[in-house]
């Protein structure tokens, strides 16, 4: 429609009592809820089948290793011995004992990453020149493998724990920082204009508008960061420390306890998956974005 025809158009005369827009949200119907349940059951079945497939492959691998005389020593990697050892470790508290220090290190590393990444990301997203100034240096630093800071970290920190937390932090800071900055750049500028017009002070702008507006981007960054941190954790724990999941893997290898090694790998997978799941749920709960 061209502008001139739009101008010439006469709106139909409204009835004496102009219609009021009615509530738009219809209650979800029973059939809709059933369809939702069916979809959930289906995806659960797929997940179950996928995990079963993984187990079968593992078991087949175990059988192959067992039947090969040159690899017979590694037979404990098979699911049977692994799960037997895993339940033993869970029962004796050994599993919890080696997980706690790792969770503590990842927790602190992530906390540092958020404490540095979120404010820095907001500065970058808010002040154009800061973004332009830091863009290339940060892209450069981001591409350096976090583990290559290891010698420096070991020298710079008096404790092994400190060095590991630093390595995790430096690995996890980038997803948080970039996600925060990108989220802020995507925010509808008219939200800021309205706030400015209504007399918002800088702290109102930050806490009432910016942070809620980009909360989902921050959490998505944290979720990515958690994934990276969990990956960096194990190699970081290979050195120095005498606790944690990475150390346990190394230790099991040295003592040739392959069932313990495999059980530790399973624990790492389960906890990583669990943490990521929690993150995902937190995002879904805190999000104000509508799916439809």
């Amino acid at each position, binding site marked *: 429609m061209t*502008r*001139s025809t739009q101008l010439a158009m006469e*709106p139909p*005369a409204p009835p004496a009592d102009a219609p*009021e827009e009615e509530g738009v949200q219809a209650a979800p119907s029973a059939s809709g809820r059933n369809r939702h349940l069916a979809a959930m059951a289906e995806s659960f079945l797929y997940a179950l089948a996928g995990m079963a497939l993984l187990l079968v492959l593992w078991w087949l691998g175990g059988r192959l290793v067992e039947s090969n005389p040159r690899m017979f020593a590694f037979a404990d990697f098979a699911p049977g011995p692994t799960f037997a050892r895993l339940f033993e470790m869970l029962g004796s508290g050994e599993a919890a004992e080696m997980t706690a220090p790792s969770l503590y290190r990842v927790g602190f590393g992530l906390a540092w990453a958020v404490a540095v990444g979120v404010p820095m990301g907001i500065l970058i997203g808010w002040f154009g020149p800061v973004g332009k100034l830091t863009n290339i240096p940060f892209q450069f630093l981001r591409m350096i493998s976090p583990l290559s800071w290891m010698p420096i970290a070991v020298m710079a920190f008096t404790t092994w724990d400190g060095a590991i937390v630093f390595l995790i932090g430096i690995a996890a800071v980038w997803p948080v920082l970039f996600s925060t900055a990108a989220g802020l750049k995507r925010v509808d500028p008219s939200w800021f204009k309205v706030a*400015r*017009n*209504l007399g918002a002070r800088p702290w109102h702008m930050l806490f009432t508008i910016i942070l809620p507006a980009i909360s989902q981007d921050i959490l998505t960054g944290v979720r990515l960061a958690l994934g990276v941190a969990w990956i960096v954790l194990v190699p970081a724990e290979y050195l120095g420390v005498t606790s944690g999941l990475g150390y346990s893997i190394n230790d099991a290898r040295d003592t040739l306890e392959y069932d313990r090694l495999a059980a530790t790998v399973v624990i790492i997978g389960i906890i990583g998956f669990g943490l990521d799941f929690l993150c995902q749920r937190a995002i879904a709960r805190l999000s104000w974005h509508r799916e439809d």
Partner: protein
Amino acid sequence: MKGAHIKATGISHTYRRGATKALDGIDLEIQPGEAIALIGRSGCGKSTLLHILSGLSQASEGTVYVDGALVTGPSPSRVMMFQAPSLYPWMTVEQNVAVGLKFNGRMREAKTRVPEMLELVELGSYAKRNVQDLSGGQQQRVALARSLVLNPQILFLDEPLSALDAFTRHALQRDIRRIAAEMGITLVLVTHDINEAVMMADRALVMKANPGRFSAEVAIPIEGDRAPSSHEFAIAKAALVEAYEGAAGLTMAETAAPDRLTSATDPAPARVRAIK
């Protein structure tokens, strides 16, 4: 009457990335409580002028005085509404309405003031709803309540109704005019809908582009409720169409002088005053 008086002199504006002047030597005076429509084709500088009058932007040249005080920045006493409601989707309806009170340290008033505003825009029962569950018209009503909560003296409207269907738009046009009159608010409305200008304004200023200037002024002296079917409405509209065509240099097919107007001793030209 508590609406504010606006006086702008010699307003010119060139955008940093703009090749030509978006506005060139605009002079404008608006009386307290008056309702003004700025009308003109796309790109003639209506939004630019509105931003400058509200203080959200600074003009390259010229000054704006509101009630004798120089405008140097935005103020909660001069509130702008946009085409999009721009509500905060993480807040409920009442939180959105109260946000101005929060920014000005007046949350204590929220308990009485917010329900009052929601009644005013006829959304009393929607206080706890998330704004994303509302229709476009309802959202624009919430934006209106949010704009009014601080008792502004001037309301600037930048085509806030253009995305709505005809019925909803008409209801809001009437309601905004009524509320502004009741609260004594000065209304400055940007639109390219001639019906909307006749519906809401006491006076329309027609703008032309390149550079943005006023080309004509049309008085719309209709008392009381305005019905598009009334004779007065048709006369005012014809006058505005003529002024608009003059500014835009085009003819609008179906609005050109309907027969019933010729009987009215042709009063339209008398109301149009060419500027410069």
